[in-house]
């Protein structure tokens, strides 16, 4: 070969390489794109499952991995765990021993606007809203038609209603905890433009309007598959929103709440045979639970929810095997002020006082010491019945978190009756006595109609619904959460309890959120 030929060949092949090597486009291979994902009809249901899963799971791997959030501990970031902490730790129902950054200051009501748990909850609320918005954008009739999926339309209309229910649920948590927050709907595009701040009033109306609008698209009361929303779940949510309307918008809506409570009570729900059945590994069988966040040791693993409640409530001389799990985390105890609600505790005739006192001090000398404060193994990973069995996995319980249950509806009925929103105090007394009879095993704990007062109902709610994530909202509604009217151990950072500033009825808008969204104004006081 001559030099000329070789050089021609070299130049030609080099040019060829250069020309073929110009493509700089790559597309994701191991995950779907927004174009391809709905080619599979199963993706609609999978996306809907993600919307429900947003309340339970923290990412795409169980119990953690490929998290929904970055820069936050994934196990901490679980929706229900944070809701629970913000609703229970600053109250008279719970303290936690751990020193995780920002956790002790939840117990003392001295949280900073940079508190990571406050930030996580805020992020969860808007994560749910964003996911729902995206779901709604991707499931319009036009989109379905484009993809040739019109045959699925009926089913997907119901999915959309469920999605809107979930968004309303999270917005309720949002206005309850944070007050004036943005209202982001499916009309708000994803992008760098931050949303405007809305008000509690506007969002309150939005929640009510949304729930009423979708009511008929959901299955009848109690008719949904376990873990999904129906008209009973919706009524329960509406009832709770109306119950607190005085706090949210300054106008009481007890009459509206009454109608919703009636819908629930008129449904197919019944009290479970025993109180604790609602908090055990087989609580999906409880006829009392209206809406649960299901967890399962083999399919739905998370470090939040009941995993947190079952393990963290165990410590000291408790034997984890007695509660169906592999190890105690030495975290949660109850406060002496809450214990005092049960006559004769720890040997109270009231079965709802599920206490463990061996080696535990009643008084809480130190929040960080697990043995200060009685332990309370309300949630366990054992099945109900005379021969309890451990759940399917020692670390990740099968126990579902009961978000709404019938007992709450009964207590709301009694409170509404007392507040003149409807119904009768006689019926209210009867409902309360249903709960007390179950708790006492007989009628010795029953009350008379005159004994049914607003203060009694609040106490009864603490006895019945403790550690179920309602306490802060209840105390705020009664005006007792902050201030000095009612103090408990470590409120205000002293063991005897001290008054706190009323602005702490609301959590701060997280400092990180103010940075990301300059449209927001911080809540007063922070």
């Amino acid at each position, binding site marked *: 070969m001559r030099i000329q030929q070789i050089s021609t060949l070299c130049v030609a092949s080099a040019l060829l390489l250069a020309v073929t090597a110009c493509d700089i486009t790559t597309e994701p291979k191991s995950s779907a794109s927004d174009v391809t994902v709905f080619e599979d009809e199963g993706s609609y249901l999978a996306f809907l499952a993600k919307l429900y899963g947003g309340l339970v799971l923290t990412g795409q791997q169980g*119990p953690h991995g490929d998290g929904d959030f970055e*820069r936050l501990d994934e196990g901490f970031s679980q929706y229900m765990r944070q809701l629970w902490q913000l609703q229970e730790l600053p109250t008279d129902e719970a303290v936690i021993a751990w020193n995780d950054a920002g956790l002790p200051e939840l117990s003392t009501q001295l949280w900073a606007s940079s508190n990571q748990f406050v930030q996580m909850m805020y992020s969860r609320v808007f994560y749910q809203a964003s996911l729902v918005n995206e779901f709604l954008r991707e499931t319009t009739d036009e989109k379905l038609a484009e993809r040739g999926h019109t045959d699925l339309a009926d089913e997907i209309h119901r999915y959309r209603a469920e999605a809107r229910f979930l968004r309303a649920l999270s917005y309720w948590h949002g206005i309850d905890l944070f007050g004036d927050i943005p209202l982001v709907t499916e009309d708000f595009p994803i992008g760098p433009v931050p949303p405007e701040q809305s008000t509690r009033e506007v969002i309150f109306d939005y929640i009510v309007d949304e729930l009423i609008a979708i009511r008929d698209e959901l299955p009848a009361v109690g008719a949904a598959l376990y873990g999904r929303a129906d008209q009973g779940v919706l009524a329960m949510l509406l009832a709770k929103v109306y119950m607190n309307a005085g706090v949210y918008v300054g106008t009481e809506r007890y009459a509206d709440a009454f109608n919703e409570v009636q819908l629930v009570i008129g449904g197919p729900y019944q009290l479970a045979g025993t109180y604790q059945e609602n908090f055990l590994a087989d609580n999906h069988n409880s006829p009392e639970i209206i809406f649960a966040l299901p967890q399962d040791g083999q399919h*739905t693993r998370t470090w939040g929810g009941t995993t947190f409640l079952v393990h963290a409530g165990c410590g000291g001389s408790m034997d984890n095997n007695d509660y169906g799990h592999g190890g105690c985390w030495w975290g949660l105890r109850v406060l002496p002020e809450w214990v005092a609600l049960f006559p004769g505790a720890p040997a109270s005739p009231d079965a709802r006082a599920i206490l463990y006192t061996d080696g535990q001090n009643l008084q809480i000398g130190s929040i960080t010491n697990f043995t200060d404060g009685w332990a309370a193994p309300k949630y366990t990973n054992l099945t109900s019945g005379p021969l309890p069995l451990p759940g399917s996995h020692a670390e990740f319980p099968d126990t579902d978190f009961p978000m709404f249950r019938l007992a709450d509806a009964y207590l709301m009925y009694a409170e509404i009756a007392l507040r003149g929103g409807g119904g009768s105090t006689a019926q209210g007394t009867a409902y309360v006595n249903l709960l007390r009879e179950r708790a006492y095993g007989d009628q010795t704990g029953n009350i008379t109609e005159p004994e049914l007062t607003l203060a009694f109902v609040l106490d009864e709610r603490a006895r019945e619904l403790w550690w179920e994530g309602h306490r802060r909202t209840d105390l705020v509604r009664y005006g007792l959460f902050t201030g000095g009217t009612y103090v408990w151990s470590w409120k205000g950072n002293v063991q005897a309890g001290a008054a706190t500033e009323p602005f702490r009825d609301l959590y701060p808008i997280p400092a990180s959120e103010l940075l990301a969204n300059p449209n927001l104004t911080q809540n007063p006081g922070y």
Partner: protein
Amino acid sequence: MMLSVRICLAALVASVVCAGQLAAQTTGTVTGRTVDANTQEPLQYVSVTVADLTAESDFDGRFVITGVPAGTHTLRATFLGYRPAEYTVTVIAGATANIVLEMEPAAVMLEAIVATGYGVQEKRDLTGVVEAVPAEAFNTGRIVSAEELIRGKVAGVQVTEANGGEPGGGISIRIRGGTSVTSSNEPLYVIDGVPIPVGGGLTSLPFPGGEGRNAMNFLNPDDIESFTILKDASASAIYGSQGANGVVLIETRSGRGAEGQAARLSYRGNFSGSTVAGRPDILNATQFRQAVTDQAPQQLVFLGDESTDWLKAVEQSAFGQEHTLAVTGGAGSMNYRLSLGYLNQEGVLQASKNERISLNFAYNHSLFNDRLNLHANVMGARNEDQYTPGGVIGSATNMAPTQPIEDPDSPYGGYYEWDDPLATNNPVGELNLVSDKGTTYRSLGNVTAEYFLPGVDGLSGTARVGYLVTNSERQFFAPSINKTEEEDGSFGTVSRATPSEFGWQFEGFLRYERDWGQHGLNFTGGYAYYSSRTDFPRFFAEELNSDLLGPDGIPAAETERTFLTIDENKLASWFGRANYAFRDKYLLTATVRTDGSSRFGEANRWATFPSAAVAWRISEEPFLRGGPFSDLKLRVSWGKNGNQAFDNYQQYKTYVFGDPLAQVQFGPLYIGTVRPSAVDSAIKWEETSSWNFGVDYGFWDNRLTGSVEYYTKTTDDLIFDVIVAGGSNLSNVVTTNIGSMKNWGVELTLNAILAQGSGDGFSWDANFNFAYNKNELTEINPYATGSEQILAGPFISGGVGSTVQVLQPGEPVNSFFVYEHILDASGKPIYEDVDGDGSINEQDLYVDRNEDGIVNFDDRRPFKKPTPDWIMGHTSLMRWRNFDFSLTLLAYLGNYVYNNVASSTGFYDQLTDAARPSNLHASVLETGFVTPQYFSDVYVEDASFLRLENLELGYTFRRALNGLRLYGVIQNLFTLTGYSGVDPTATTTGIDNNIYPRTRTFTAGLNVWF
């Protein structure tokens, strides 16, 4: 690159030789050999000049200069990495003078020609900041990873282990400080023209045992000929979107100059022993028992009667050996080098080890009267890594020293364990029960053809095809009887990951080089394309029915999960560079590169990065001649660079499927989920603009040389995971271009020949380098109205989800973010109930900085930072007769470390927090803390230090074989520091959290040339 220069030089020599022959009557010939004064190893490429005639030595070190006018001349020899040598030679007309030139290695590098990326340049013509470190100047002793070779050698280049003294562990290089917060801060590595991803790719893939080892470990350090660091934008702009963190060019050894030579064999080998150089200061058994007695007497019942040193129980004296056998030779116009290397390095923690077998082959061939040069280089290695299981160091620090190691009744494989799940686990049990191993095959190579086009003088075209291929396997096994497995609910785990990677590159460029009288022009321009793909399949099998099969089989696992991730990445580039010189005094360089990357969003697909530089060699001006200056050059450069070392597919909204353990229950069914991801579809490179002002100087015939640099770097469009406004995207954060930072600094390099004995006399070369860098984050969010702070840094140990660093404008990146602890009169942090409320807490101990009456998280403030203000290095090289002696010192000033071992174990609640007491950090005896104070500034410690990195003594037998050198090295003989933890360099993060202990190493070795 190198080839073309050599050909030019060869042509020059030939013409000189021809000219000489014409004048044969009055001239003589000078011949001789150039050898290393030390090793007697022949030196090739030595430039020998006598009476304005120049020749270059060949493979055997031989040179011939004919046509030298009769008379006495000064013969001058110069060579990269060696001190210039001068001999007086008398030439008799018609006769041949024979001379042996012994060249002495310099600690200091006065290299004549340096690599600049897609070419080479004479150092004197440089306008940018390019520093080369030749093999002669490398660190010696126990060297597993190539980066260790240049620690302390170049001003402003910080070489830090990612995990202390782990053999072959990841290493970070920072050139003039970091320019990024969330993207990589690592420079681009280019090995023989082929770029390789470091700090990304295979090493950072998630796996239960933690990250893998250094991606560069496939390189045998003995195969490296030189490192070249491109520091300023003028030098690195030719690498465009990959150049913002500087560029490290690595040239491997070849057989250049061995054409027509018989094969030559050389051997280098050494043996080393390493011990732990620093342990955390924890209580011994007696102190621990006393602490329990005083502070938690109720826990006394649990204590055993042993006196176990848990740290010692997991350590070992680590043995290491390394051997390289190389053959070099050639025939006709081809040459080759083939080397075989073996390394076996144990870690000072049991179970960690690194074993490498490496092969490196280089082949050069000149064809068609040297018009076509072919060059091929293939290197490959098999690395076998054994890892110390992740929790071992922490457990060894925390486990109560009163407890025994073994317990015949234990269900945990015979190792003593506390009977409580929260208690610390037995580190020896973990060590012996868990196995974590990996094997990596990696090969890198290229074929380069350079063709000098006929017809146009000085015009050549180069085409290069390179590849990088990796196949690796990581296997992990933990039996169900391991207590950790029981606690995390895994109950026995077998997992395996088999990542593989294939990347290929094509480059084609033209070069044109020409002088017209006083004008010199040199132009390079071309196209490059890079494409790579990574496949990452892995599986996890948990809850094993039996431990019997170990890592080799899966006996009915209750939980099995498999994953597959595939990543692709493409980069296409056009680049050009022009150097212009007028009278060799006024120098100008202009560079431009345009990159198109698959990582950039549609709207920002292509990016252009320009740079320009000018230099003035004042020492060439008549008015400076004859003064003390032998060299004086002023340089100014400006340029833009990019950083595209972020994840693939960031611009796409992806839908990620959930795994079987993250399903959602709908009635009787469990439904897998799918999740859309947050996205910034316009994501693009980070952009750094830099200025550099420099002076190169040489005094007294270059006995004192060096440079002074001042630089500023401004980085914009920094990529952060920023918190999104709630509701505006599909996560809590989105990765986007936001924010800016600034670096500025000064560098001073000083090379001195302190003693210059000729022959066997005493000589002493010294190098000093000083670098100051100041980093400041200038903006993190243009929309922000209030104070801007983003928590940063890794999660610390102690408290889940806690970080102690912050990003805040006006402060250095990753400043520590802590409370101001109130000190008592003696300067000790207070620990008492100041407000008398019955408890000691934040309200008592810390300053209420925002004066709102409450001490809470809003009272933390940025305080100090992990990066040093000053990095200083010193190398001395002394010779006397057949002895040589060298030392390398390294010092940092102004770097701070958060002592996480102290903060997470230095408080008495450690005795009661879990069911069983854990050991305490000895700081508790001073502070008296009962509850942890993770966010106290007490734990942010000044970690300035001075370390004797390297101390070497060698002896050369000049007449044995073709050279034989014996040497001994001590690495890290001492570290002087006020820091109380194990290692003041800690890691790049500034968090000292049970890092792998640093070692002190003693090495003995020999080099032989046959």
